[in-house]
């Protein structure tokens, strides 16, 4: 049973936890010839989120210091369930660890094979295998047609509640028309998409610019939110929310204070340059307010009331979802929301209700499939 302790009152959905999928884990699920490539790296020495041929970090040129925070991994569904229970979390949405870097692989077929292997492994070993563990399909941006096939293959799986669209080290920003098959398939399946970034130092914009900074302090400070901002801008520029009006979209792992900034900046620009984004039926802030956002790494302003103000600025009471990022070093405990200056009602929404609506599940984690019931596009 889930231990609630001091959070008795709150039903908690965590929109972002990470499992540590290893090359060995994926070998049985990977097609030939790519399985051979995984077998070849089994004995290669590894660092955290840094495995040659599997998790290319591009960070080997910096000093490695002893000490610092723990680099934890989640290796089994039992371990994850136990840790979530300890944190007071009822339902968690699973992302990968190493394949957060999948967008950096130059070879299309390899990336697609890894995504297929991960999806098969996720469905077979994790999603719904313990109470409250739900999964997201991994879409390899290098092969949108294959990613769309994956969505169609698994769209009815009870354990699958959305599609993860990688942003870390992504060469062509989401929004480019090459990605249309993914958005089409996700919208038609009634599955939401989640943009999630990660720190890497490959040559893709804006990650290439991180070379300007000498330390992890600086590189980590803005990498995630900048990547989300640029992807959001590209999505709006190319009219993705207009073209796929029934597709729910969420931006995760950049905190939330960049959202009002983007909302106001883009509205200002829109005033002068509406005719370049003639497809928008409303100012950009309208679409930004309809996107969803994960809280982690949540801002912790000195005045706790400031967090409520930030959320108000993008009218995010119904679109902000608690995300822990467990077990990564910058994870947030639900306490970060519970101890904030938000009202009890808003805490309830952010901790659970908004995510239930976004992922279209009930408190048992059962898929509601409202989309099929409405018959939209199906």
């Amino acid at each position: 049973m889930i231990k609630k302790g001091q959070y008795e009152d709150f039903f908690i959905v965590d929109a972002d936890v990470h499992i540590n999928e290893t090359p060995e884990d994926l070998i049985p699920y990977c097609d030939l010839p790519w399985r051979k490539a995984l077998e070849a790296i089994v004995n290669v020495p590894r660092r955290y989120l840094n495995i040659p041929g599997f998790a290319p970090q591009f960070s080997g040129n910096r000093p490695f210091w002893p000490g610092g925070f723990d680099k934890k991994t989640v290796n089994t569904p039992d371990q994850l369930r136990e840790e979530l229970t300890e944190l007071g979390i009822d339902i968690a949405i699973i992302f990968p660890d190493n394949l957060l870097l999948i967008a950096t692989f130059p070879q299309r077929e390899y990336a697609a094979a890894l995504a297929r292997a991960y999806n098969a492994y996720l469905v077979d070993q994790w999603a719904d295998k313990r109470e409250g563990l739900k999964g997201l399909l991994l879409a390899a941006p290098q092969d949108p047609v294959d990613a769309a096939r994956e969505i169609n293959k698994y769209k009815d799986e009870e354990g699958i509640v959305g599609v993860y669209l990688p942003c870390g080290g992504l060469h062509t920003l989401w929004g480019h028309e090459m990605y249309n098959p993914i958005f089409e398939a996700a919208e038609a399946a009634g599955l939401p998409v989640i943009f999630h970034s990660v720190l890497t130092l490959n040559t893709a914009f804006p990650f290439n610019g991180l070379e300007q900074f000498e330390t992890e302090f600086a590189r980590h400070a803005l990498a995630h939110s900048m990547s989300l901002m640029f992807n959001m801008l590209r999505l709006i520029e190319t009219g993705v929310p207009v073209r796929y009006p029934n597709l729910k979209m969420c931006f995760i792992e950049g905190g939330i204070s960049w959202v009002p900034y983007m909302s106001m900046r883009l509205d200002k620009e829109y005033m002068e340059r509406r005719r370049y984004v003639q497809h928008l039926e409303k100012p950009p802030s309208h679409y930004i307010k309809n996107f969803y956002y994960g809280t982690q790494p949540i801002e912790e302003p000195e005045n706790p009331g400031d967090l409520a103000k930030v959320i108000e600025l993008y009218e995010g009471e119904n679109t902000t979802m608690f995300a822990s990022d467990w077990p990564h070093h910058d994870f947030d405990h639900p306490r970060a929301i519970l101890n904030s200056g938000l009202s009890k009602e808003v805490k309830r929404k952010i901790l659970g209700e908004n995510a239930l609506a976004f992922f279209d599940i009930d408190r048992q984690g059962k898929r509601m499939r409202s989309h099929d019931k409405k018959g939209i596009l199906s």
Partner: protein
Amino acid sequence: MGRIFDVAAAQDIPLGTHKIVTVKGRTIGIFNIKGSYHALPNICPHQIGPLCEGKVSGTLYRDKKTWELHWTEEGEIVTCPWHGLEFRVQTGECLAYKQVKLRTYNVTQIDGRLLLEI
């Protein structure tokens, strides 16, 4: 019914042009669009720029079904010279913010003179 002012000779505002006139301390733009006359206040709702001094042209439109880009409303859109807000001259509608609509004035042409009602 407002008051009528004789503001210009029709021949002073030929097809496709516009002119700013001052009536009772207000500046107003008179536009000749496809042979009919329209008038808008020369004050932009954004930061009160001289809206009617802007260029009259068309605008870009994207067909939502085919996603093709078109040039439309040629000669019917005035763009504020300050920051570029676009307005549909005949109706006063702002293209960016649909809830914003400028007031419009009636202009009639009698014996070669343009009569503005304010």
